[in-house]
């Protein structure tokens, strides 16, 4: 009984507290309302006085105009910065394309020189030269010539797109092929197919130092190839130097191996 009473009393107190908090909140809301009313009245008064007083109005106008000018200036600066950033962006995009192209070109040159020096087997080297000329330069008909030191003739050792027997040998220093090899300078004509095998469209002389060892002569290009790019000219240089060294080294290697085998055979014979 006593507990029930105490509980009832406690709940009553809680109820009174809630009512008290509600009253305080209402009072606060009323005060805030009053404050806002006063602020509104002040603003209205300010506006009315500005409208009534030409001096105040002019002041306000000047203030607003100066603010507009400042904002317009800011806007112009932002627009200029935006176009600068856009321009910069365009430059970076162009540069990116250039670098990507350079990267591709360097990759092609790397692959070409890497493959050329990957073997000492002369047949393999010739095969690699053929692959490079087809896959990297895009030639359809071409021949690889090596210089025969005994008679100073450039003789075909491999051909693609044409029977190698059709391609004529040529004396060093004579004809377009012989002259280009003797001069050690790449001869590059137009890209029109040449069916006259004494007149190649490109001659890449193969030199080790100043010593001529052969040439690559192109007679026609693949259909989709309509001209020579900067990369093609770089590849001509790579082939002129690296293919020459690779062919020369592999030829020396096979000769020395042959000699070694002969000597070994002779020694074996003596030992018996």
């Amino acid at each position: 009984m006593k507990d029930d009473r105490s509980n009832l009393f406690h709940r009553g107190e809680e109820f009174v507290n809630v009512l008290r908090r509600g009253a305080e909140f209402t009072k606060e809301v009323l005060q805030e309302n009053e404050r806002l009313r006063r602020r509104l009245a002040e603003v209205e008064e300010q506006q009315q006085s500005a409208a009534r007083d030409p001096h105040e109005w002019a002041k306000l106008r000047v203030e607003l105009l100066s603010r507009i000018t400042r904002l317009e200036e800011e806007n112009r600066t932002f627009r200029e910065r935006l176009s600068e950033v856009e321009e910069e962006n365009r430059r970076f995009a162009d540069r990116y394309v250039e670098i990507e192209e350079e990267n591709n070109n360097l990759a092609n040159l790397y692959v070409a020189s890497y493959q050329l020096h990957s073997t000492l087997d002369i047949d393999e080297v010739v095969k690699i030269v053929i692959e490079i000329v087809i896959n990297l330069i895009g030639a359809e008909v071409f021949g690889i010539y090596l210089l025969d030191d005994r008679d100073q003739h450039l003789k075909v050792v491999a051909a693609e797109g044409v029977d190698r027997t059709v391609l004529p040998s040529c004396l060093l220093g004579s004809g377009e092929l012989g002259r280009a090899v003797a001069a050690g300078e790449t001869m590059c004509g137009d890209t029109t197919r040449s069916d006259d095998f004494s007149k190649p469209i490109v001659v890449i002389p193969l030199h080790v130092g100043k010593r001529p060892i052969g040439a690559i002569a192109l007679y026609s290009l693949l259909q989709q190839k309509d001209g020579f790019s900067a990369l093609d000219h770089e590849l001509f240089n790579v082939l002129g130097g690296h293919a020459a060294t690779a062919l020369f080294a592999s030829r020396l290697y096979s000769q020395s191996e042959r000699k070694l085998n002969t000597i070994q055979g002779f020694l074996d014979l003596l030992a018996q």
Partner: protein
Amino acid sequence: MERRRILIVEDSPTMRQLLVFALRRLKHVELVEAQDGMDGLRKVSSDHFDLALIDINMPVMDGLKLISLMRGEESLKDIPIVVITTEGAQEDRDRALKLGANEYLTKPIQANRVLEVARGLLKIE
């Protein structure tokens, strides 16, 4: 991100190296090389691949045979295939596309074009 596996079936080491150079610019990609059609078939049958680049002219087993075997095999028939041909080999290219190849690349190959085709078929950026 899940790694994508690309099989390069090409007998020319020069071409293989060029393709590897181009494709390794793709992120999250693993490249596997095969030197002829038979080697390619062995590799593609024993592991999962998301794309295969196949040369047409190869010793032991040519690219057309490999494509036709892949398209006839349930587990391999959905692998996207890119054939590598020369411009003159229009007939081979048409046959490869008819057999089920999805795209083709012509020699001399351009690294950007290789990337574009691979990205398109792998559906990656």
